[in-house]
């Protein structure tokens, strides 16, 4: 019952991706790549705007340089090589679109391909820091009612 509905939903999602042109706040992808930083600040949510306003002194410069290098060295029709970073607090900017970033989650570098829909979010939001919980059977003493049983 679940499998066919999921497949159909995926198909419509893919159709939407290819038919509907992407636009962030009314601005198309090509224009986004040329937008200046002040214009970007207007479009982005207030948290990101605050971060940009408070200055990008030297934090992301290394990362952006490496991303540019990787993109230049990439062959056409191939993804650029992964750039690893610990900078989970880096906001995704149109310049980064198409790069592959390895975001640290404390233990490993999770590979994230930057898509245009991700603008305005932090890099850390795409790299889960915890293993999702799958509970086992609750043991003795988990609830009040199960504490008296352990006497043989």
């Amino acid at each position: 019952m679940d499998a066919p509905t999921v497949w159909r939903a995926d198909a419509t999602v893919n159709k939407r991706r290819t038919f509907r042109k992407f636009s962030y706040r009314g601005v198309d992808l090509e224009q986004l790549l040329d937008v200046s930083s002040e214009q970007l600040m207007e479009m982005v949510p207030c948290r990101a705007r605050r971060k940009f306003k408070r200055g990008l002194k030297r934090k992301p410069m290394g990362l952006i340089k490496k991303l540019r290098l990787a993109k230049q060295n990439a062959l056409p029709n191939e993804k650029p090589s992964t750039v690893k970073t610990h900078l989970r607090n880096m906001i995704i900017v149109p310049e980064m679109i198409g790069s592959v970033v390895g975001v640290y989650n404390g233990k490993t570098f999770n590979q994230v391909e930057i898509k245009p829909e991700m603008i305005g979010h932090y890099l850390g939001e795409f790299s889960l820091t915890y293993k999702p919980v799958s509970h086992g059977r609750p043991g003795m003493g988990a609830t009040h009612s199960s504490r008296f049983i352990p006497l043989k």
Partner: protein
Amino acid sequence: MIRVLNTNVHGHVNIMYALTAIKGVGRRYANMVCKKADIDMTKRAGEFNAEELERIVEIIQNPLQYKIPQWFLNRQKDHTTGKYSQLVANGVDNSLREDLERLKKIRVHRGIRHSRDLRVRGQHTKTTGRTGKTVGVTKKK
């Protein structure tokens, strides 16, 4: 019962409060729309003729043209289109679904939490939010 914007609106209720039956229109927005429409606010919803109701519907759907300020609207600086609008009736449900779909598609943490029916806003989930979820130990007999 009048049919406005795909919703049934009670006819015996005051017009301002009758409009709140429409999803996306609350008391404040209904008040604003009635004022901009120049209608008698003391009358009941059933007492209006079709032309006035049409005027109200137009104002609800095009708030910016009728000088309702941008900060009053419920969909400001939309994520994909950048427009300012007021979502009403089906639009509210559709846009909510689309927003969640967008988050899930990008695989943001927020989207993952939504798809697993967990708390999204950073709340502790160890002891709260138990309605519907079962926690217990089964006794062996």
